[in-house]
């Protein structure tokens, strides 16, 4: 018996665009640089002698940890992006992602309240977007990040149409 959580069966699982890797890496680096700058302040103060009372090991440790997490993030990101996938099945839509932490969300079409397509500036620069599916539950809100803008709009229309066809009462 396999120990891995298997995907719900579907003829075709569609991957998101590989351009998402670039977007995530850039966001990772920018965030990492900001965090690094903030936590390096004690280190700089310590090295220049302004705050020599600060324990040296701590001054080096915290920026080191931040740097390490940025590097690890950069290594893992391509695998994570490749693991993002979705499938339009007969009665529901399934969204899955994750390399170390698998996560699968399945929403019946009739439960979809509305669908949003959003894109921040970084995503727009690469021509990508993010699709958000909203239900009546705050726990079930699958997001498909990294769709090409045209694909995203088409998917939104498709989901909305199937959702309306099978609209069920709450």
């Amino acid at each position: 018996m396999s120990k891995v959580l298997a995907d719900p069966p579907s003829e075709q699982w569609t991957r998101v665009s590989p351009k998402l890797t670039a977007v995530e890496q850039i966001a990772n680096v920018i965030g990492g640089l900001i965090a690094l700058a903030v936590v390096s302040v004690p280190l700089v103060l310590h090295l220049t002698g302004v705050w020599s009372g600060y324990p040296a090991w701590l001054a080096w440790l915290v920026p080191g940890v931040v740097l390490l997490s940025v590097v690890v993030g950069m290594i893992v990101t391509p695998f994570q992006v490749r693991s993002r996938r979705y499938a339009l099945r007969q009665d529901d839509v399934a969204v899955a992602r994750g390399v170390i932490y698998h996560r699968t969300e399945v929403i019946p079409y009739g439960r979809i309240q509305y669908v949003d397509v959003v894109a921040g500036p970084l995503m727009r620069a690469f021509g990508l977007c993010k699709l958000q599916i909203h239900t009546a539950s705050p726990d079930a809100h699958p997001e498909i990040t990294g769709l090409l803008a045209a694909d995203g709009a088409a998917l939104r229309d498709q989901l909305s149409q199937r959702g309306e066809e099978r609209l069920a009462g709450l």
Partner: protein
Amino acid sequence: MSATPGASGPDPAKSQASDPAVVDDAGFPWQRVHPATPYLRGWLAIVVIVFASGRQWFDGLFTGDGLSDISGALPWIVGGTVLALIIIVALFYVSWRFTKYRITDTQVQLRTGVISRKESDARLDRVQAVDIGRPLLPRLFGLSELRFEVADGGSSAFRLQFLAAGQAEVLRADILRRAAGAKAATEAGAAGGTGTAGAHQRLTERASGWAQRAVADLSGEDVYGKLPGGTADERELVRVPPGRILGATALRILPWAFLMAVAVIAVAIWAESGVVLGVVIPGGIAVVGGFWSELNAGYGFRASWSTDGLRLKHGLTDTQHRTVPPGRVQAIMIQRPLTWRLFGWVRVEANVAGYGNSEEGKDESRSVVLPVGTFQEAIAILATLLPDPGVDDAMGTLTRGLDGSGGDEFVTTPRGARWLAPLAGGRQGFLATRTVLLIRTGRLSRTLSLVPHARTQGVLASQGWLARLAGVAAVELATTAGPVPTSIPHVDAAVASELVTSQVRRTAESARREDRNHWLAQDGGQVARPQEEQS
């Protein structure tokens, strides 16, 4: 309370040319809330002004030699206070005049606001629950507020403050009737009851009547429930005696009180006396506050069944009269906390669509369907909210669901993975019946959750690296927000994959079967039945 003439409705000449919905609305007059409403909402402002100015005056009085200064400034202080009060009263009056509501065939509409107008419309067929609340101060004046939850994509509760208590009851019955899909409309004249009749009585009669009602209400009697269609068609299910709620709340607080005591003793041994106070006082306030709020919410709890749905009455200082229409409950939980096992008490809470979104802190008490009761009482209430549990031996299954420890029909954590949850491993699991999914968790405090298939919004499965080592995954059913836990931990990975697929299929099937927004209407819900897909 007089209804305003149709000056605010749509122009009759225009409405003939527009669509039928507008013509219908023209027949429903706008109504005003009780004139005392702004005062009951804004009494704090008046108190603050009087207090602030009075304090200045008193301060001046007590400093002695400032008396002569004060007497010169006295007219200014008094005049300023009076002016401020006049302005406030005028503002209150204006805000009251600009507040109006009405009920049409399909909606409840509320219009408030002078400068920034707010129009709230709530669709009757999406009504999830209707509550009547009577906070302490309005209650003394015989007023109550109407609060109902509408499933409209997460909007917060719709509140109508304040109405004469009798009128609020009639309005609630009316809303529930229309929400149920029956076409009957109440006559505007029959509504009013104690309200309009009183307008013609002499002042002394009204005062004594008011005093009698206030005394009866405060002593726990249900004065305002005795109305046409009020309690006549009710069947009482559960009544929680005050002793039980007191004891049960004390037992629930007991672990926290114990921890507090341990912390105080530890601090007292190792720290100075000042620190002890700093720990005791906030901790004591927290424990006593928790005890009081639970007691306040659950005191005098009575549940009864009517065609409107499950009617709940509870509360000590703020009484709540709630109605949960059938079919609105999204998930139910029966819980047996450790300290209650001796007495065999259980607690029943439910996810009602809309309750989780509310902004007040009273959220948690509003999800409580039975604060404390015996297992039999819990079953009685469960039977009204969930008529068909989907198994033949319902009592046996539910008993095993709440108290069982494994080796029965529930699918539990596989042996090889029980080390992840040493206490509850043998017990935690699920059971899928025809109509609901039962989820069993907890060992010390035992919990049984019931999620109807038709109410499942989606299914989530997740597996971290540790779970993958053990070959298990977590499966969660998504429902509307609320206290019921709907997550099944440590399910065997293959079983989890299969559960996701089968649960989604069951959800789609029962949603097609059971779609009923109007539970009294013969022809099913208002939403047009979709054609089955041919492909």
